[in-house]
């Protein structure tokens, strides 16, 4: 029996769709098994097409992106109603994504910066017609509806997608790996004695040695090993875009915990090494962090 599949986009860059399309001929292995019933990124489906389907009629629903507008929230709820298995597809869907970093500011400040004070805008005004209302904060989708499977990644690699899809189509469970990016990285790791942190463009990287040992902020140790360490293997420090290692509750807190242990420098110097700790340590999962939750709650109380 073919499986009915729906692929929905909330607020996102649609990179996850790109990653799926990048499977090229690999898609042929799964295509005969599936029937795509909703995929607005590629075919002209409308929201009402999805709404008119019976509940639980979709075998696998994939949701990418996070909820920045009320329309996103509505689409997410519809997807939950219609899908038997709901997959959080990509890190935006799992942990809020890069747009989660916006939770550092209030909605008014964000709207003001984006629409009124943007450098390229000549006729500043806030759009009000035919646009959905913004949500106050970016909440991780898993806080809004229940998900059955998480597939983090920014975007998940084509191989991750193929693995997940083949498992789900055949009815097997899809479990996230216990490993970190470091486990997949081929560089030689030694005892860490970090005396100084460098920006990526500073100094020369020794391609055989661990980037963190050399003083580059590579977050592979705290990041889930799904990507195959594609960045560190080409001498680019890991930014942690796939989200934390499984069962880690707070990505950034875990990172500063590790940095405090391996950095051999005065606390003040360590503090000055990272001008923007939230941007550096919560690249794609700030919305799921404790800090963001505390701020969101604080804002909500103030509004009352």
């Amino acid at each position: 029996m073919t499986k009915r599949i729906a692929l929905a986009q909330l607020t996102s860059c649609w990179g996850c769709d790109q990653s799926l399309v990048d499977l090229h001929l690999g898609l042929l292995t799964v295509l005969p098994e599936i029937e795509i019933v909703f995929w607005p990124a590629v075919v002209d489906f409308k929201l009402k097409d999805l709404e008119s389907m019976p509940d639980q009629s979709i075998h696998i629903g994939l949701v990418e992106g996070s909820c920045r507008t009320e329309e996103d929230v509505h689409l997410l709820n519809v997807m939950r109603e219609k899908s038997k298995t709901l997959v959080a597809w990509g890190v935006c869907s799992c942990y809020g994504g890069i747009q989660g970093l916006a939770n550092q500011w209030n909605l008014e400040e964000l709207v003001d910066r984006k629409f009124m004070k943007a450098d390229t805008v000549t006729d500043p005004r806030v759009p009000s017609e035919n646009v959905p209302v913004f949500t106050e904060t970016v909440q991780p989708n898993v806080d809004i509806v229940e998900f059955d499977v998480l597939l983090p990644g920014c975007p998940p690699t084509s191989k991750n997608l193929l693995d997940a899809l083949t498992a789900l189509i055949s009815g097997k469970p899809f479990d996230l790996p216990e490993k970190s990016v470091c486990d997949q990285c081929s560089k030689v790791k030694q005892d860490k004695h970090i005396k100084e942190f460098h920006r990526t463009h500073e100094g020369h990287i020794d391609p055989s040695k661990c980037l963190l040992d050399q003083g580059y902020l590579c977050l592979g140790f705290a990041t889930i090993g799904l990507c195959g360490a594609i960045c560190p293997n080409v001498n680019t420090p890991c930014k942690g875009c796939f989200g934390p290692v499984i069962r880690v509750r707070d990505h950034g807190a875990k990172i500063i915990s590790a940095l405090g242990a391996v950095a051999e420098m005065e606390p003040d110097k360590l503090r000055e090494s990272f001008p923007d700790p939230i941007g550096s340590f919560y690249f794609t999962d700030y919305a799921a962090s404790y800090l963001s939750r505390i701020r969101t709650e604080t804002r909500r109380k103030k509004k009352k």
Partner: protein
Amino acid sequence: MFKELYKSRLRCQGVTNGLTAAGQKSASTQKPKTKVEDRFEPRILAFCCNWCSYAGADLAGTSRMQMPPNMRIIRVNCTGRIDPVFVLEALNQGADGVLISGCHPGDCHYTTGNLKMKSRFALLQKMLEEAGIEPERVHLQWASAAEGDVFTQGITSMVERIKALGPNPVKKD
């Protein structure tokens, strides 16, 4: 709309294949208040290391030193064991402040655990500041086993500091 969102968030059961803070609910751990308090009495969580500060707190107790009763102490083997996640979790559950008390630099039973905490604390404070949460809610102090008075003083000033800040907005009422 948002009220509904939060309700549905409480309803959701988390997901099956592992998760971060996202799946953690803090609401269930709160005890309902029995009466309305007129005066704000902060609830402060203290992490004390087994070898210095916990013994110092003990000394303060046996010497009958006076200190405010707002502190709940958790004993850890070393301040180096304290993950910043513990501190954030405490704040997220409604603690008004978190005090970390350990051995003086150089006195650590495990040689450098307290120094690791100091480094983590520096980054944690910066992160709190950037996130818009008062960094004064988290405090690091050193108090040896012989310094019951230093411990008492630390707690007293911590309580004063938190009283000036007001309650943690996350606290459920």
